[in-house]
């Protein structure tokens, strides 16, 4: 056990320590994906890179949006916009649990005082056509991470299997920093010349988005955007792999997948507006899943997934 670990003083210090820890353990430290997503899993560095035979190791922060979780910044730990820390290693190393526990120590969780538990939680993303087995990791009864061995993504079996770690950063940080309400959490160092709390950064935006998500978002426009994203995704995937301009084979898996991400987020917004009935809900999820599957089909035909020209008839 690292005996020199000090308790971090701010939200950002925890993020920085996680970045340093996973960099030290060989992950490529990526940046957040530049689109609205519901979770770090949607980042192509996880969804697409978990497919195919090529080894992969990446870690990154992903701002995530869950419109239905908005509480106007009043709930101590429920937010419509929050940060996830995401690690994906393929193939999953045999000591992944130990590595994970090491990351908790790195951010100041004293294993001798806390109760860490791996509680069954099978992960399934109906919109991504993905599932895996693993746990919620509990620290003193608080879910601080999701730990998943991916079995299938976009309808494709994962071989090799990726190990995915997802940390709910605000909750974890609140716990480590001993803060009861997320808005009170120090964002930067409390002794900085201009100390900022989480609420200074996000209280107002939580209010604004909660109001927009729940009551104002124009559902007609959203519905149209959904249709457009879906159509564009399918249109991109229908284009011939061989680019007439460059003469190269260019499968546009990522641009198509962007449209899938967009459709998924718009669906979440529509859901928060309460305009999707239970029966329609399944149909929408099915439409997004169909996109995700076709994007996965496209990705496995790219070099990043281990595709080789001569391996194809």
């Amino acid at each position, binding site marked *: 056990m690292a005996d020199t670990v000090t308790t971090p003083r701010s939200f950002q210090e925890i993020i920085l320590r996680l970045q340093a820890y996973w960099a030290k353990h060989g992950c490529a430290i990526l940046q957040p994906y530049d689109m609205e997503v519901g979770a770090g899993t949607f980042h192509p560095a996880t969804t697409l890179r978990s497919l195919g035979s090529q080894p992969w190791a990446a870690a990154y922060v992903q701002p995530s949006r869950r419109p239905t979780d908005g509480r106007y910044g009043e709930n101590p730990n429920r937010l419509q916009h929050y940060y996830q820390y995401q690690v994906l290693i393929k193939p999953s190393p045999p000591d992944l649990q130990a590595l994970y526990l090491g990351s908790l120590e790195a951010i100041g969780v004293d294993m001798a005082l806390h109760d860490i538990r791996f509680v069954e939680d099978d992960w399934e993303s109906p919109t991504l056509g993905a599932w895996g*087995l693993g746990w919620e990791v509990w620290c003193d009864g608080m879910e601080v991470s999701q730990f998943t061995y991916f*079995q299938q993504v976009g309808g494709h079996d994962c071989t090799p299997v990726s190990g995915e770690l997802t940390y709910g950063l605000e909750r974890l940080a609140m716990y480590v920093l001993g803060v009861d309400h997320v808005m009170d959490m120090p964002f930067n160092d409390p002794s900085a010349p201009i100390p900022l709390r989480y609420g200074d950064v996000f209280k107002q935006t939580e209010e604004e988005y909660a109001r927009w998500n729940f009551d104002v978002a124009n559902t007609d426009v959203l519905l149209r955007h959904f249709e457009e994203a879906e159509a564009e995704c399918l249109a991109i995937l229908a284009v011939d792999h061989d680019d007439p301009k460059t003469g190269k084979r260019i499968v546009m898996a990522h641009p198509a997948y962007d449209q899938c991400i967009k459709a998924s987020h718009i669906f979440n917004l529509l859901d928060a507006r309460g305009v999707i009935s239970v029966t329609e809900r399944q149909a929408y999820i099915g439409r997004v899943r169909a996109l995700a599957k076709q994007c996965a089909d496209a990705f496995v035909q790219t070099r990043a997934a281990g595709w080789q020209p001569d391996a194809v008839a």
Partner: protein
Amino acid sequence: MMPDLLIELFSEEIPARMQARAAQDLKKLVTDGLVDAGLTYGSAAAFSTPRRLTLAIGDLLAASPTTKEERKGPRADAPQKAIDGFLRGAGLQFDQLERRETPKGDVFFAVIEKPGQPAADIVAKVLEDAIRNFPWPKSMRWGSGSLRWVRPLHSILCVLSDEAGLASVVPLEVDGIVAGDVTFGHRFHAPAPLRVTGFEDYAAKLRRAFVCLDAAERADAIWNDACNQAFASGLEVIEDKALLTEVAGLVEWPVVLMGRIDAAFLDLPAEVLQTSMKEHQKFFSVRNVTTGRIERFITVANRETADQGATILAGNQKVLAARLADAKFFWENDLRVASGAAGMQTWVDTLKAVTFHNKLGTQADLIDRMAQMAAVLAPQLGADAALSEQAARLAKADLSSEMVYEFPELQGIMGGYYARAAGLPEAVAQAAPEHYAPLGPSDAVPHAPISVVVALAEKIDKLTGFWAIDEKPTGSKDPFALRRAALGVIRLLIENDLSLDLDAALSAAAAIVGPRGDAGTLAQPSDILGFIHDRLKVYLRDQGLRHDIIDACLGSGGQGDLAVLVKRARALEAVLRTEDGENLIQGFRRANNILAQAEQKDGVEYSFGADPKFAETEAERALFAALEQAGAEIKPAIAAQDFGRAVAAMAALRAPVDGFFDAVQVNAENAAVRRNRLNLLSQIRSTCGLVADLSRIEG
């Protein structure tokens, strides 16, 4: 001393709900495999913790016994080709064959001896098969491997101790995992490897390494400690066996901690506190013995700490506060809706978008049918019709509330709270939770008239609806729990002693549900009633009432009213226990048999009514008089539902019937006398038939 075998499969955390079953599966797979290979054993015990499945087998054979197989070959004078073929098949040389005399001449026999296999070889194969074919409800792959286990399998311990007590590792490798004699202690307290020689050594070393191997022992320790801590504070733990089993499967070294619920949340409904704590946190609820209010919780940690769990408890309390803040948010939002201008109707309106069943419409349609049905039933059951209808319209409103969305198991319970908050009559509020009842054979039955009406309306609609779309239960398949609905109808009526014409009620329901399904058919009330009668027989059999008695009562009309049917059956059962009743059955059978034979022989039905003027003996005249009197008594008694009097009047026929058979020869020479006596027997049948069809009584 015979060899002992110790197996441990050490993995990442096994889901709590799968552990006990997995330990038993391991035991079965391994012991069956050993026995099939000829290795018998004295004892076998399986254990599970979150990270390991363990099997200890005692008194195993050191090797499987040598077996001899005898094969009959060709005759000694058979062509050489045949003999060569036989030798090849048996894998023997010519001089190894035995030549024996048989009645068919001399024949060659091959005696093939298979030497026994050492236990280690058999164990290795059996264990590998068990690992590769383990029946996990869900399994996975990891890394680059192809082996499947519930979570990544890290090590295999497989130690066989021989007669001398010397332990050795069984050589075995499964997908790169090489079996050894090493295990590991508690993940945090004692993670170092432990080398073990046998089960006792293993269990003792694990205990020192903060692992309690036996799930039952962990559960007992948790429960005792939880109760003691609660008791010391004048409180009591609310028992929850399923939760206890689950929690015992989450820890290797249980440490029980009791914490407080923040005062801000103590006013949430007890059901909300208990459900939230159980579902999200796996906490036990601890209540104040006098007020019944839930004030504290018990959580179970997986380790000891230097601060006696203070940090862990503080963390758990904080998590709970956040959870309950959410519950409070739902509760307050819901209360705002319920007590708003449109009230709970707001929720009913949203249910227009929620499908109940694609052939039976939305939840709002269902509610509408329930309300119509309640209006039909209420006057017949002595309940206020307007209140019943209102209660039916609101009983399922909470399905759209935020709390029930979060905790589906609180359906109905929340509806009751919200109806009270909306200032609705208590009977309406009460019907929300109670209309789902009874949920099974032992669940309490509501008694409040409005609740009973709505509960019946819900179940009758359900039966009628699914009958209309031809989704009846078949065999073990009953996806819509229609047997439970039928049992609900039965218990609601009988345990409340309510008289209801189910024939009429089911016809009304069929009209309300209307034509459904692809064929657009109406539900057949008689079919549903038959189904209910079948369930009634099961229900009464469980209460010790014979099915043939029910059949006998069903055979004499008035089947639509279950309460009346049961009263009749109970009265009949009581009288059949008496000597008169028993003998009457004998007499009835005799009469019935003679009559049936005569009717068959003569090809006529003797039901014209006998004439006393042809009576020749005193016994005959006495029976005439008795039948007349019995008929006169039974009819009004049945009409008044006084079945005690009716069966007593019937039983009173015993003496005259016996007297008749003692004194009278039915098949008299005189045809007119014979015919008259047969008609008299027929009158016994018809008079008894006023009470029940005694021909259905068995034994």
